[in-house]
């Protein structure tokens, strides 16, 4: 690649970056074209034949070009500006950074449209389902847990228990009683919140490590109950054929129904419609979580959560009932977990205790911590990186060509996961978004440096 010295340029210079990227691409093509593009193979008659592997070459060259462009256009200037004004945060942020939330939201809304128009309905399923829906579930779980861990500073290692309560509430009540999703969604949330209060009552007297351990145990207990209470939960075999969600009974997603969406809208039958619908459903649920959390942060209860994280003793000296305040945080976090759980059950059509192991809790906590405790945007980025990252690993099967057919990138998931987390925590110890946004201001809004913000202790 070009060994040109980096000139310290301030803003991103897209033209120069593009030129550089093309150059790097040409070089990569020159290097990898012959090396990887041609492969000799013996055919039936022991003749040596050349096989072309242009697909892989294109992928590699594309990675080089895009990578070079990103480095040149964003990473290097960012590093330079960071070095230039180390200390005070720069006031003139880039357009991208300033409008990050709007751009992100627009992207999320258009995502299925983009994918479908690029790949067609049938091919879009994987991208909408494995990436879109999967990531958004974790965004929602991250935002829910963010209330408990990020705002109130209570380390809850058993969050997945509430996710399980929501999922099983929907699974059981819909398959036994045939209740609709739209009734069971709020009900699952309420049931999960109730469990949050039941657990919270004895547990929230504990602080720090003790709270973490007890919540961890609670998560495991719920899972063991699900495994062993066979009569109700069908044990580790789980519950299958959970009814699909429909649009208030007007439109359904079962091909056999007269109200099937394909028949109503005169489209060929495809399972993609249901996935796209689910995508928008989870997007709406996640945005609802974000909306409520943002509202709550500006209300006295949200400020009390953050004050609790900062100093519990001071809170009590100001007349704040800390037990109730913690309980509301716990219950609300659990409620959003329950919503996500019932969505999960509806989307999978199948639930089993396997889905609610401790690793899930750990992943959600990791998302909150990586994102930067208390930051909604940070949590969303972290969820996209962690969940999207693991999904991408599944897509790397072309690496088999490099490392041989036994190579399974999925096996390295945890390893890469751990490495990435360590790297990020070294690079940004406060998570992706380390600054805290104040909830009220008199003169001008200034974000608070993460180093002053406490992490909570129980």
């Amino acid at each position, binding site marked *: 690649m070009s060994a040109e010295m980096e000139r310290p340029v301030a803003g991103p210079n897209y033209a120069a970056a593009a030129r550089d990227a093309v150059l790097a691409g040409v070089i990569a093509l020159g290097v990898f074209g012959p090396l990887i593009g041609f492969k000799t193979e013996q055919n039936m008659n022991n003749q040596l034949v050349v096989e072309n592997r242009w697909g892989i070459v294109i992928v590699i060259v594309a990675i080089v070009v895009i990578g070079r462009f990103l480095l040149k256009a964003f990473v290097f200037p960012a590093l330079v500006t960071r070095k230039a004004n180390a200390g005070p945060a720069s006031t003139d942020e880039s357009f991208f950074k300033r409008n990050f939330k709007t751009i992100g939201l627009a992207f999320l809304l258009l995502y299925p449209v983009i994918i479908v128009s690029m790949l067609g309905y049938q091919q879009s399923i994987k991208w909408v389902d494995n990436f879109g829906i999967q990531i958004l579930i974790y965004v929602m779980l991250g935002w829910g847990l963010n209330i408990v861990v990020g705002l109130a500073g209570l380390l809850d290692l058993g969050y997945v228990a509430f996710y399980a309560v929501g999922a099983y509430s929907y699974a059981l009540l819909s398959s036994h009683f045939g209740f609709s999703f739209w009734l069971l969604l709020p009900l699952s949330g309420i049931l999960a919140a109730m469990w949050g209060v039941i657990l919270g009552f004895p547990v929230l007297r504990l602080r720090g490590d003790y709270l973490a351990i007890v919540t961890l145990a609670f998560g495991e207990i719920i899972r063991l109950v699900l495994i062993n209470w066979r009569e109700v939960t069908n044990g580790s075999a789980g519950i299958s054929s959970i009814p699909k969600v429909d649009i208030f009974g007007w439109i359904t997603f079962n091909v056999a129904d007269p109200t099937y969406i394909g028949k109503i809208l005169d489209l060929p039958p495809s399972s993609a419609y249901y996935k796209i619908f689910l995508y928008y459903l989870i997007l709406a649920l996640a945005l609802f979580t974000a909306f*409520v959390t943002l*509202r*709550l942060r500006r*209300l*006295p*209860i949200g*400020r*009390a959560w*953050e*004050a609790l994280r*900062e*100093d519990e*003793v*001071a*809170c*009590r*000296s*100001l*007349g*704040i*009932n*800390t037990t109730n305040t913690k309980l*509301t945080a716990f219950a609300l976090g659990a409620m959003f977990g329950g919503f996500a759980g019932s969505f999960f059950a509806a989307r999978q059509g199948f639930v089993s205790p396997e889905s609610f192991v401790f690793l899930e809790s750990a992943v959600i906590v990791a998302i909150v911590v990586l994102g930067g405790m208390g930051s909604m945007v940070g949590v969303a980025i972290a969820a996209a990186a962690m969940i999207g990252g693991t999904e991408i690993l599944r897509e790397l099967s072309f690496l088999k060509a490099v490392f041989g057919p036994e190579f399974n990138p999925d096996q390295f998931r945890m390893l890469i996961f751990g490495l990435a987390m360590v790297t990020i925590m070294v690079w940004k110890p406060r998570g992706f978004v380390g600054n*805290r946004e*104040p*909830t*009220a*201001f*008199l*003169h*001008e*809004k*200034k974000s*608070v*440096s993460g180093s*002053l*913000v*406490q992490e909570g202790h129980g």
Partner: protein
Amino acid sequence: MAEMIPSWETNPILSVEHVTMRFGGLVAVNDLSFKAGRGDITALIGPNGAGKTTVFNCITGFYKPTQGMLHLRHADGKPFLLERMPDFKISAKAKVARTFQNIRLFSGMTLLENLLVAQHNPLMIASGMTVLGVLGFAGYKKAEKHSIERAEYWLNKIGLYDRADDPAGDLPYGAQRRLEIARAMCTEPELLCLDEPAAGLNPRESGELNELLLGIRRDENTSLLLIEHDMSVVMEISDHVVVLEYGTKISDGKPEAVRNDPRVIAAYLGVDDEEVEQVEQALDVVTEEAQQ
């Protein structure tokens, strides 16, 4: 007549009656009784480890006294038995606010937010226990505006109005002390307990603090109880001084009376020379003022 019976005996806001606090074998407070007068600045002094902070923790409910009673009576006559109330209710219902010897601000929150958290209870009611607030009812907006005005009032009083949007943890030490007092005052207390408010302040800041405390007594219908090592502060602003040593009360009276008490002088002689000097200098100042 008023000369004979001190005002704190006739109209006390707080009566501490035979309070004892034991930690295992250690008697931190031993059968302590005193009264704090309504509208007075009462100072609780004594050498290190005398049990002053422990008394505060009993008054504000952070410790439950082993024995004894703590009576509080509001200006409207409403009585409270503090030893029976949980700590947050002592602040919310009995209207006793406090500051801490080692400052406890919400350091990652802005000054304004610190003062808003102090108004949690009225704001919580205004937000309909959050429900109406989430739905965006107008009543809450009004209540919040009112709270912000109160916060502005106190920010002006402590001279930190311009720094309202900075994190509390960024403030210099003296300003943090004042902010903690303002935060306590935002709960609209009847009794304000200050644990060594002048500790670590330079003479100018200490003077400003005196002004602030006198202003609170004058304007706010709040009685003050303060622990202080800085004798100049004690002698200059307090109406009544209670002296503790090893958890036992050794003197109680007007500053002029306490300064001449041989037991007080002995107690301070037992500590260190610097503090004795401080006592003596302060006493001289007061004597001179009294003679003029």
